[in-house]
């Protein structure tokens, strides 16, 4: 790979400003119903003034700046501004609770916090007495904050003004700090999701983050004509590599939706050529398609069921690297015009160059489904500590795998089956935690903690977390996640926890039904229900879920089959710490929380009483009691 002259993100920003100036749009954001545009030059100026504003407020090289809120141009500028001043940016998920925010801000010793709006400012003010290091909280959406008088607060525009004044007094200072920035400066902290213990901050240098983007750019054809829709959090590696790094390297245009609720609508308006959805989102779209088809006009349903198999067939032919014959081609054309094109259009998925999934394991069925719809769906396996590890290259698609290892990654599978990585994109250690760094870097290899193998064509297959691969009482190994991702292909199953262990003789499951789709299914069948608690315990619903489990069981060895399950009376909820903010299941926490149910799954009981504590919004507490059915599977 040719070495770039621009070895930091700030230098890349400067290069793009010089290259495109006011001629090309760098960012678009929907505001007041209109797509407002910012050219590269405008972005550069914003970053310049913001950065100098921070410097005049006391930001020094090596200082940390947190960004709390939805991802907007302002959050990008805040990150660039921190980095241009040789500081470090830390994204925090917008839905974090005040204690979580407090942990991130104090652990990283942030001097400045960018807060989106009143909601985020309120969080920070409620904990401000415990944040002695924070000099200013800077907000960019002033709504509702007009009469806040806390001296800690400052508006985005005020900081920009400070920056302008500073620039008049110190011309050339900004350019000099960019010139001084080094590739081993820490660009961002990425906090681990904390599936085990407190989140750790992985320190990511400019060099690593540029390496990630560069590799993607080489494997997939991304250039400055591309449009990207950004709606994931800066706290996540996906946004840092696909958004920040890719944008600066390729010069593509990044679009920001109006509101989190309008993402789908905005995607349809912009028609981005590149899209990154988490597996949960793909699962969601798949469930929506399937459920809407159940509702659709019989004629539409008829054509959908006629032509979907045609598409699968074509996909299979393409996967075998063969050419479809004339008949299949003709059928495919008809099917595409009648069914697939309108469907993709409705979903805003028309005209995509490449679409990505990554973060957690995705069901091969889902990958296959979207591939059959003609989307170049690409799986990306990467983690905060290493960046990109493996991804499908264009036209090298295997639904079961994560693709071959990325060219400059060295990969090894340990005796225990753990995936070990060496790469240029490696992190620079955990912040203030040398012990954890050493532990994960034994022998110079990064230990991913993921269980996997490399298959016969050289593709990496990631099965599960090492810690989560389980052994049954008779010594048979099975992967709960393997079953879980496959069960989530069902439109009726939103989430599921598969349980088993050395003290257990068989596998069982706790299912979180998808209230919307099961609800619709029930309505059509005139099954009356009130809430998820009620619906989930209906005999008919149990039978519905049982069918899905039986289907999965057929593909599993005898010992790994699910023998009993319950439909949980509520949703798994991130606010109750059952899911991480990236919506991964917190396995051990959930197992602990529902230990009563798990005990019952291994007894002869046919139902169990559960009590769930409820905290009302006004602080009152209550307990809800109800009985849950334990359902056997043949």
């Amino acid at each position, binding site marked *: 790979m040719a070495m770039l002259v621009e070895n930091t993100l700030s230098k890349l920003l400067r290069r793009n400003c010089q290259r495109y100036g006011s001629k090309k749009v760098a960012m678009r954001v929907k*505001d*007041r*119903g*209109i797509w407002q545009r910012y050219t590269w030059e405008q972005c550069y100026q914003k970053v310049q003034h913001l950065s100098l504003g921070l410097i005049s407020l006391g930001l020094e090289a090596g200082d940390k700046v947190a960004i709390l809120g939805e991802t907007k141009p302002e959050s990008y500028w805040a990150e660039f501004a921190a980095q241009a001043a040789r500081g470090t940016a830390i994204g925090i998920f917008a839905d974090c609770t005040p204690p979580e925010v407090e942990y991130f801000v104090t652990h990283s010793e942030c001097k400045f916090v960018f807060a989106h709006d009143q909601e985020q400012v309120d969080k920070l003010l409620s904990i401000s007495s415990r944040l002695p290091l924070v000099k200013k909280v800077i907000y960019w959406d002033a*709504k*509702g904050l*007009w*009469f806040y008088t806390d001296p800690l607060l400052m508006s985005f525009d005020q900081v920009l003004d400070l920056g302008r004044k500073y620039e008049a007094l110190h011309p050339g200072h900004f350019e000099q700090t960019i010139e001084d920035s080094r590739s081993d400066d820490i660009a961002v902290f990425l906090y681990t999701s904390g599936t085990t213990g407190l989140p750790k901050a992985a320190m990511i240098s400019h060099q690593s983050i540029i390496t990630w983007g560069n590799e993607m750019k080489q494997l997939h054809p991304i250039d400055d004509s591309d449009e990207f829709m950004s709606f994931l959090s800066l706290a996540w590696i996906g946004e840092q590599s696909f958004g920040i790094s890719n944008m600066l390297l390729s010069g593509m245009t990044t679009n920001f939706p*109006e*509101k989190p*609720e*309008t993402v789908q*609508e905005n995607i349809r308006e912009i028609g981005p050529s590149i899209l990154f959805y988490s597996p949960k989102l793909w699962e969601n779209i798949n469930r929506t398609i399937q459920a809407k088809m159940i509702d659709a006009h019989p004629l539409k349903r008829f054509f959908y069921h006629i032509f979907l198999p045609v598409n699968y067939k074509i996909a299979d032919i393409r996967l075998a690297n063969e050419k479809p014959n004339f008949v299949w081609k003709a059928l495919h054309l008809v099917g595409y015009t009648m069914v697939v094109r309108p469907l993709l259009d409705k979903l805003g998925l028309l005209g995509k160059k490449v679409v990505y999934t990554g973060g957690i394991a995705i069901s091969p069925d889902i990958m296959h489904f979207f591939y059959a719809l003609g989307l170049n769906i690409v799986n990306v396996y990467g983690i905060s500590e290493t960046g990109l590890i493996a991804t499908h290259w264009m036209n090298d698609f295997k639904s079961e795998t994560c693709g071959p290892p990325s060219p400059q990654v060295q990969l090894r599978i340990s005796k225990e089956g753990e995936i070990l990585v060496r790469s240029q994109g490696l992190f620079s250690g955990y912040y203030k935690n040398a012990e954890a760094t050493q532990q994960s870097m034994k022998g110079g290899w990064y230990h991913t903690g993921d269980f996997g193998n490399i298959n016969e064509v050289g593709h990496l297959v990631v099965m599960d977390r090492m810690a989560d691969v389980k052994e049954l009482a008779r010594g048979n190994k099975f992967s709960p996640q393997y079953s879980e991702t496959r069960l989530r292909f069902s439109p009726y199953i939103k989430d599921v926890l598969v349980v088993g262990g050395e003290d257990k003789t068989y596998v069982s499951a706790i299912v979180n039904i998808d209230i919307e789709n099961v609800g619709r299914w029930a309505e059509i069948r005139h099954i009356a229900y009130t809430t998820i608690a009620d619906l989930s315990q209906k005999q008919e619903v149990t039978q519905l879920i049982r069918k899905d489990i039986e289907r999965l069981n057929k593909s599993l060895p005898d010992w790994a089959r699910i023998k009993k399950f319950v439909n949980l009376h509520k949703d798994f909820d991130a606010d109750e710490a059952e899911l991480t903010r990236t919506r991964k299941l917190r396995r051990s926490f959930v197992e602990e929380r529902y230990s009563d149910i798990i005990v019952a799954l291994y007894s002869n009981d046919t139902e169990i009483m559960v009590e769930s504590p409820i905290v009302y*919004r*006004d602080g009152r507490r209550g307990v809800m009691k109800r009985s849950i059915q334990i359902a056997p599977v043949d």
Partner: protein
Amino acid sequence: MHEPSQIIMQIDNLYLAFGGVEALSGVSLEVRKGEILGVIGPNGAGKTSFLNCVNGFYRPYKGKIYFEGSHITDLPPYKIASLGISRTFQHIELYTGLNTLDNLMAARHSLMKSGALAGMLYFGKSHQEEIRHRQAVEDIINLLELEPIRKKVVGALPYGQRKKVDLARALAMKPKLLLLDEPMAGMNVEEKEDMARYVIDVHELQRIPIVLVEHDMGVVMDIADRVIVLDFGKKIAEGTPAEIKTNPEVIKAYLGSALAQA
């Protein structure tokens, strides 16, 4: 007594009757600039009748209403609206076949100056006027967070959302005085909290005096500067929320006399 310059609306001795039923008997009050005035009372106390008198739907048979010093009791509703008194309705009154945006644009009709022909040709001044009004409407959409339903047909929206659109419509008329008729009725706790937040935001940003007629005591006590209590068409109390909470007359009206004595 407050300075006349501090008062935006003055109501003197209002009487309204439906046949033999006296809906309002001798209600007098004033709305001061920049305040949120809560009007509460049990069912049938005359709260909505009172609002209907103010904006001209009902004609009181006795009494006078002054808005910014001028007498408005006998004006028709559309004239009262164009003076800058705008309201929401307990039973939402929107164009159910139009989307949110069109409803709000339609609400600005009374502020538009171009004629029908110029509007149709959409040229020159009328074009600029449309853009100006659209900007004002977008500001309201932003304030009330209506972006996700901007292009959704109002008739298909859930109740809580329609209530929000109704408030937005009232705001779109650029009112000098805003009358809210039970904006939280039929909402759950979370929706109520949101709505209260929006009312406060509107009040803080635009400094419009608001008359808030509400069934839910809690909400009114939280956000009103001053509260007036109606019972059987009579004003039985007036004061700050704290004063109203301890007023024996009010407790009696709400809970019955036995409890009030206990």
